[in-house]
């Protein structure tokens, strides 16, 4: 089996999130027929964001699908409406297969799958698969005015963390030297 390509995930720097909810509107618009917010409003098209900015203890935390390796939503889906993308491991939906049991909604540890009354199916982040395939960033990422949202592969994320940890270590050490 060929190795899966890591499309990356949306990583959020919480210190930079200002709760403007531009990610929410961009996400909702990206998932309309025209992909345009104004057009969708004028056409009366229903819109729903797949990312939600949630308030927690005074902070704003954008929450969305983490595209888990062992995705509980895929596990519990009896009809194959939720599945793993073989190519890159993303967790995707096939709305036409959804029978509306809502098991995925109940088991998602992030509350990132939502039942949509209007369309009779579940909605979740698809990491803007179409957009990404064209080499662009997901809509929520390009809409973020403070660059709090970025797409990183898990390797990139770990590498950034390592670098930050190393810099921190040096800073602590030089601080100790100065003190002594």
């Amino acid at each position, binding site marked *: 089996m060929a190795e899966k390509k890591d499309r990356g995930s949306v990583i959020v720097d919480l210190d*930079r999130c*200002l*709760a*403007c*909810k531009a990610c929410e509107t961009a996400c909702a618009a990206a998932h309309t027929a025209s992909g345009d917010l104004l057009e969708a409003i004028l056409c009366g098209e229903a819109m729903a964001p797949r990312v939600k*900015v*949630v*308030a*927690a*203890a*005074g*902070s*704003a935390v954008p929450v969305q699908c983490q595209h888990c390796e062992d995705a509980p939503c895929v596990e519990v889906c009896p009809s194959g409406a939720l599945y793993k993308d073989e190519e890159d491991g993303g967790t995707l939906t096939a709305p036409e297969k959804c029978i509306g049991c809502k098991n995925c909604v109940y088991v998602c540890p992030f509350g990132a799958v939502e039942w949509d009354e209007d369309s009779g199916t579940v909605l979740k982040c698809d990491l803007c698969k179409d957009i990404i395939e064209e080499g662009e960033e997901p809509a929520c990422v390009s809409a973020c*005015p*403070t*660059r709090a949202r970025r797409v990183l592969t898990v390797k990139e994320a770990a590498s950034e963390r390592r670098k930050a940890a190393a810099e921190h270590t040096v800073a602590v050490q030089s601080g100790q030297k100065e003190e002594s």
Partner: protein
Amino acid sequence: MAKDKDKNRRSSDPATQEMMDYSVEQDYETAWDRYEAQQPQCDFGELGLCCKNCMLGPCRIDPFGDGPQKGVCGATADTIAARNLTRHAAVGASAHSDHGRDIVHTLLMAAQGDAEGYEIKYEEKLEKIADEFGIEREDKDIDEIAREVAEVAMADFGRQEGELRPAQRAPEAVKERWREQGVMPGGVDKDIVRSLHETHIGVNSDAESLIKTAIRASLGDGWGGSMYATDFTDVLFGGPEPIKAEANLGVINPDAVNVIVHGHEPTLSEMIVAAAQDPDIKEKVKEAGAEDIQLAGICCTANEILMRHGIPLAGNFLQQELALSTGAVDGMVVDVQCIFPTLGELAQCFSTRVMSTSPKAKFNGVEHVEFSEEEGLSAAKKILENAIESFKERNPEEARVPEHQDDLVAGYTVESIFDTLGGTYRPLFRPLNKAIMDGRIRGVAGVVGCNNVKQAHDSGHIEMVKELIRHDVLVVQTGCSAVACGKAGLMKPEAAMEHAGDGLREVCEAVGIAPVLHVGSCVDNSRILLACTEMVKEGGLGDDIASLPVAGAAPEWMSEKAITIALYVASSGIYTLCGESFPVMGSKKVREYLTDGMEEDFGGKLAFERDPVEGAHMMIDHIDGKRKELKLDDMMNEPVERAEKVEAAAAHSS
């Protein structure tokens, strides 16, 4: 238990807590629910870094420095924050000044005999103003004088040249500074329009000069629009005198026809008070089987009829929905400002009739009974008749009125404050200045403003005021802040015994006043400006408002009017503390000018602090600094311990 904690975090007022629980039980929506639903709120708006003044935008400035630092037009964070602030100030000034204009207009109509039910009740004040304006009084009857005064005042709104008339009342040093800084107000309307013009795309981009424009419009409110509102409300409806009343939702009487006036302009609420005395109305109340007609108020129109008639206060801004939730309110009559657009929807749960009255403010699902000064009394009677009708439909078993209420004394004005002393002191400010100079009273603080769901309702006002009076600072109050402390029992003379420092208590007992004085509605902040002017005139505390040991605060502010007030108070020379920050913090330049640079130009400046006890001490430190500059005696009595820091009472969900 967790629920109790949550409740305390939302309000410190027992009646509010009780009705909040009841609202949850009954599934009545309140502002606190909507606040919760709005979380998280956008920090670009909070920081003042969002501009939608033109359709090159909307634009946002990245506060972290690595995103865009200019809007499409090139406006920086400084320009955008300053322009936004200027717009807010212009709106606040408009609200107060349009209210002021209505009062002047009513005076004019009353003088011409065109306003049903209105008359001139305070001739002495009118004559004083006529003399001040240089209007010849000889051989003229009072109506003729009133007409001329009203015309002169009206012209001040549209003044194109020269300086605003009532602003001339300020001490010379203050006026000199305003002229130097180019902010001496001219026409009330003109300065507001100028503010709006300057914020159009491609006009003023210099932050400091924009702020000064905002200050000019704000001064035109405090020393113009609002001051006229206060003056002519006194002339039309009488100068307030100390008067006893009660406050909080407990004043709603389950056996009476309850009518709540909510909003701001006394032209309406005064007529409701008059109509309630009408024999026809009284007869109809009896026929309906009610004990009586119980009037009560919310927001500043409540303060107006409290000050002049002792009509009880039902509550302040955040209690407007809770008053309806009692199910015992038969009529709620609203006019302008601070009225939730949801009242009509909530009222559908009860027999309550909410009635809008102003052509300026209509609400979904609310019946409109247009109020005009020409037929003021008739409109007021119609409103009361509607309330009597809905009383008949009220289900007494479904009513839930909390018992909480407290006594207060209101009705203090520049004219009436030391009136009680009589003799040689009357009506001079000598006793106050002397008590300050002797170190009995540390200084004076004006604590005013709104309620804000971001803080525990009322708690900001009450904790700050208690800490101030404990440290011998005499407190004067207006608006929803006054209502908060009235409900908390701080405005009755006994409060001096319980809460005031020794020096302040001695003075309160000698004069027979409470340590916290109710001086009226939010336009009556102009009374505080004039009281400061009187203190300067009295002598011994410097020749400038900026030299007085005084401070101002708006611990729970939320409205644009509060921004305008803070600006005119600070630019009149008074240190002014705001409980919530201004939406400008994303601009270092604007932030630093308001909290620092402004002092050099205006003698006063702003400070921002959410903790009310910490805020009180910032004010006390400022007052002590001024005492030192004036080389006043040390305070007579031993210093008292500082109260524990109040945990910043944000109602954020946790």
